């Protein structure tokens, strides 16, 4: 919503300056987004008279002008404008001024050998319009030496307010004036809405042909015929007002409707009455009907759109836009003015469907003051009679304004109880009254009737807000939150805390945390088990971001490639975030996902870098699970990774039947489809599936039982089939004696050499921890034999000689 200070002063008698008004508006909830003073940029420019204009001695198209701009002596200016002539008045810019329209600093100069001390300006150079045919040609009575901005009444600060949707009443300057007056910044000036008697019966009637169940589409339609008007350009004051707020003046009749729309929040339409056939009828549009609208576009209409018609065709869309066929022109002699009420929801729906964003729609869809329909008509009639002449007919009324009166009780105690500041009853009453509310004392407070223009006021908290807002939010004393306990309880659940620990665990391993979109392209998501129709966005911002992600890997891999393209080929990235298996809340789970690409480290004089491999990814996955408190010894590894991994270089980690994580080298085909160069490895840990530790009272740990006897380490090497997983062998060894064997670790594997084809050797170190006494050689030998037997039974392996 834009308006100027002078426009505001038509509605508010105030001495306040623009800055104070702006501050007050903002603190009333009418946030001033911009306050611009156009006069500032035009300050150096003055009205000047061309005393003499002579041809330039060295250039046919230039003139040498002596310019009187109110100084002691005229200055010489070289001017190229075709209309520069002796005796004319124009706008002078002295050397040293900044020309806002063409954005340059004007300097003294010599043009083709003749000195020039300034410039005569066009409208474009002033930044006022695109007009550049010639220099500004002012009327003979323009005072020489006067500031051009004040002469042209451009010294009028412009306010731009960001209106919240509830304040429909402030889509008119008058409503804004009302709020300012309530805040003590002046007095509201009443609008000229006295009834103008009609001098003849209206030749055009109005009837409704709406389906009875949709009568609320247009509850009230007021029309008035004015005959013998003369349409033409608006007077300068009206043009200036509209131009200042960014509206293009068209003709007096159209400009008046815009003036009443902005000034009084009362959209109107003026038909050329001679183009209306039969009478005005309000009905729904019929499928197939079209409207050539005033904005030079043609719209296909559908049922349910409120159309203003004559007896033959659609003339306009109620509350949205008028039609070309019945619009006013210079030739218009008789007019029919429409002031109506339209259903906000239907207006919004129609406007949205046709993508028409007009000043009228903006107002109707937020809701208009139902009681200002007839006064608005009188306001417009008076202006038309003043500016276009003519003779007014009698007002035609169809329908009536819907009932809007309601009473809301406001308890005095609620002002402090909810608003946090005690506004004494007399002050609260006076605030409400100044906003137009009707207030009567009742019981523990007031019975309050909101005014017709405040459709947004529905309940007691709304009234508290009105009182406190005008009283000033600044005046609410700030109170710190009462502490629920001296020492706060943890804010995080164990699962939330764990997600934080996982981030720190990965970052400590040198992995950088990234945050990427929750959506991705459908093609990418399909490679990672996604792509369900139910998880596609109906209105994505682009085809690359149209599917909820089934995995974070594609986003991280793409990010890795972008970094590689920038010269950082070796990197590790992780993200802890949501992935989506279905559109149900349970379908969303929290994944910690990490990738590594390129080499494991930069080149170093001593440590040779190597390409990242599946074991880097496995280590990341194990680090995450360990940080989650998962007993790693109980984890099982299945060498059956999901399809996006290399089929022989990846796996899943599970705890019993529950799959917690997967890891591996990314499948080369997947990398190719993603346009990512390898090597790249990754892991995904489903944090939602990782069991939480049992909650227990206290944090005491079990007593440490450290054996006093020295552990014994024995190494074994087994020859097994290539297909035997190392973990199976180690697990068999571990199972040989659950009491004595404290640890089994695989420390070597090789194949080839002296080994037969299809066989490999796996070496394990077994740690025996004696419990009761140091072990004898015989006891050690006995355990060793059990180990060999167990391994042979489980894997067919034989001890290497």
């Amino acid at each position, binding site marked *: 919503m834009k308006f100027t200070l002078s426009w505001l002063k038509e509605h508010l008698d105030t001495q306040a300056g623009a800055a104070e008004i702006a501050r007050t508006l903002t603190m009333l909830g009418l946030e001033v987004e911009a306050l611009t003073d156009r006069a500032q940029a035009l300050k150096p420019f003055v009205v000047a008279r061309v005393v003499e204009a002579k041809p330039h001695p060295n250039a046919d198209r230039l003139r040498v002008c002596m310019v009187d701009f109110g100084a002691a002596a005229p200055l010489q200016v070289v001017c190229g404008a075709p209309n520069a002539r002796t005796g004319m008045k124009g706008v002078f810019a002295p050397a040293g001024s900044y020309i806002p329209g063409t954005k340059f600093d004007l300097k003294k100069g010599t043009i083709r050998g003749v000195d020039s001390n300034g410039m005569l300006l066009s409208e474009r150079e002033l930044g006022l319009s695109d007009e550049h045919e010639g220099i500004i040609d002012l009327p003979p009575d323009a005072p020489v030496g006067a500031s051009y901005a004040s002469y042209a009444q451009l010294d009028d600060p412009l306010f731009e307010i960001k209106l919240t949707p509830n304040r429909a009443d402030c889509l008119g300057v008058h409503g804004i004036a009302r709020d300012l007056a309530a805040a003590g910044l002046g007095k509201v000036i009443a609008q000229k809405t006295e009834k103008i008697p009609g001098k003849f019966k209206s030749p055009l009637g109005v009837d409704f042909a709406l389906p009875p169940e949709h009568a609320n589409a247009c509850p009230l339609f007021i029309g008035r015929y004015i005959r013998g008007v003369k349409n033409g350009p608006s007077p300068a004051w009206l043009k200036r007002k509209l131009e200042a707020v960014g509206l293009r003046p068209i003709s007096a009749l159209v400009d008046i409707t815009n003036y009443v729309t902005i000034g009084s929040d009362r959209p109107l339409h003026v038909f050329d009455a001679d183009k209306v056939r039969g009478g005005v009828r309000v009905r729904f549009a019929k499928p197939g009907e079209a409207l050539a609208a005033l904005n030079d576009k043609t719209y296909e209409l559908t049922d349910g759109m409120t159309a203003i018609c004559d007896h033959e065709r659609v003339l306009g869309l109620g509350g949205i836009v008028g039609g070309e066929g019945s619009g006013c022109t210079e030739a218009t002699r008789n007019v029919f003015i429409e002031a109506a009420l339209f259903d906000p929801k239907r207006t*919004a729906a129609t406007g949205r469907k046709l993508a028409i964003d007009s000043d009228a729609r903006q107002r109707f869809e937020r809701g208009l003051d139902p009681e200002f329909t007839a006064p608005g008509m009188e306001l417009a009639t008076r202006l038309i009679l003043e500016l276009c002449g003519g003779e007014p007919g009698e007002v035609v009324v169809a329908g009536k304004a819907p009932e809007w009166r309601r009473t809301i009780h406001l308890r005095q105690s609620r002002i402090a109880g909810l608003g946090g500041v005690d506004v004494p009853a007399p002050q609260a009453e006076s605030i409400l009254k100044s906003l137009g509310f009707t207030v009567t004392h009742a019981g523990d407070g007031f019975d309050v009737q909101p005014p017709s223009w405040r459709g947004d006021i529905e309940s007691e908290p709304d009234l508290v807000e009105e009182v406190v807002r005008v009283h000033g939010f*600044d005046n609410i004393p*700030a109170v710190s939150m009462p502490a629920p306990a001296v020492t706060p309880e943890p804010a995080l659940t164990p699962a939330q805390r764990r997600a934080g620990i996982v981030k720190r665990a990965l970052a400590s391993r040198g992995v950088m*945390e990234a945050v990427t979109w929750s959506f991705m392209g459908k093609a990418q998501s399909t490679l990672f088990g996604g792509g369900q129709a139910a998880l596609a966005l109906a209105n994505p*911002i682009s085809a690359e*971001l149209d599917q909820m992600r089934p995995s974070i890997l594609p986003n991280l891999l793409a990010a890795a490639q972008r970094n590689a393209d920038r010269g950082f080929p070796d990197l590790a990235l992780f993200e802890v975030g949501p992935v989506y298996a279905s559109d149900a809340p349970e379908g969303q789970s929290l994944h910690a996902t990490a990738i590594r690409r390129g080499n494991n480290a930069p080149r170093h004089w*001593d440590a040779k870098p190597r390409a990242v491999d599946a074991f880097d990814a496995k280590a990341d996955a194990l680090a995450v699970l360990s940080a989650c408190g998962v007993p790693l010894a109980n984890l099982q590894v299945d060498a059956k990774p999901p399809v996006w991994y290399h089929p022989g270089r990846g796996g899943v980690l599970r705890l019993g039947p529950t799959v917690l994580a997967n890891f591996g080298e990314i499948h080369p085909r997947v990398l190719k489809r993603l346009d990512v160069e390898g090597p790249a490895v990754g892991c995904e840990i489903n944090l939602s599936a990782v069991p939480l530790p049992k909650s227990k009272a206290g944090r005491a740990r079990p007593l440490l039982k450290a054996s006093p006897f020295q552990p014994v380490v024995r190494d074994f090497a087994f020859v097994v089939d290539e297909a035997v997983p190392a973990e199976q062998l180690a697990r068999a060894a571990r199972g040989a004696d659950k009491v004595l064997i404290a640890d089994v670790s695989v420390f070597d594997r090789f194949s080839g050499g002296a080994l037969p084809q299809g066989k490999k050797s796996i070496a394990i170190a077994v740690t025996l921890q004696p419990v009761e006494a140091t072990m004898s050689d015989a006891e050690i030998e006995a355990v060793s034999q059990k180990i060999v037997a167990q391994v042979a039974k489980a894997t067919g392996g034989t001890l290497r000689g």
Partner: protein
Amino acid sequence: MNDVETLKSKWLGAVRAAGDLAALENLRVEALGKKGEVSGLMKTLGSAPAEERKALGAAFNALKDEVAAAIEARKADLGDAALDQKLAAERLDVTLPARPEPEGRLHPISQTIDEVVAIFGAMGFKVAEGPDIEDDFYNFTALNIPPEHPARQMMDTFYLPERQDGSRLVLRTHTSPVQIRTMLSQKPPIRIIVPGRTYRSDHDMTHTPMFHQVEGLVIDKTTHMGHLKGCLADFCRAYFELPDVPVRFRPSFFPFVEPGAEMDIGCSRKGGELKIGAGDDWLEILGCGMVHPKVLRHCNLDPAEYQGFAFGMGIERVAMLKYGIPDLRTFYEADLRWLRHYGFLPLEAPSLVRGLSPS
């Protein structure tokens, strides 16, 4: 006795002259070995006169001990010299770089959420969560945003496909639906904050289709607008870690609160540089208000009994303001240079006691 003196000077001289451990060992065998010259003296005792035997014996033993001690001393000296020589040969160029250890960093969004949680946690707030894919009831209807409400047009909502019953799920446009989920599942008093992902169909200089918000909700029987002001002013002072952060509350409108407000923080824009703190200008950072009675009723809470406040704040926005990050879009690019520059070491979680952010 002269023999003793002669032998002594002979062997001690030889020990001193021994050039390495091998030579010294040879000397030891020649002097003190079973057939050594010094050991051999003892065998001559038997042929010595009886009255001299005792003195001679003592002298032989002293000689033996002295030679042995000299050998040991020389051995230690030779050992030290050998070690020195070995160490001299082992010299490294310690100016060479150490083995590389990559340094990971946390994203500013994680850091900022941790900071926000630390502050509100101290005020008794707990962290609540909800799904990103929401239904219409939680995201709009229960928050007093009916289907045709202009506020639905204010938010550019991402929709999922229409379902058989004609309904459509949405990507939550704010973290506010978690207010509803919490009030429906928990009894007051309630104090929660909800940091999380939110989505709006917007992509330009200052908007991204996904961003993070933190929602706050307090429901009890007495919390009023003064508490709302106090709570958020206390938050700003703690969060920005500046001596003076003025705040201002302006009336505003959100369908789910009444009265509604926006909070500005003080700033200055002198010389085109934005600085948070006392200054001549204001910067909007969040929307807030008292929970609307209709919202309470949707959650089966009686507005005559319960009241409270809610607020919603952009995580990226406050991160940008605090840490001087100029461009919102860079948060999601995973540019290594950006992550290194704006990221945080994982060594310490933000805490009000230890300090919120690294200095």
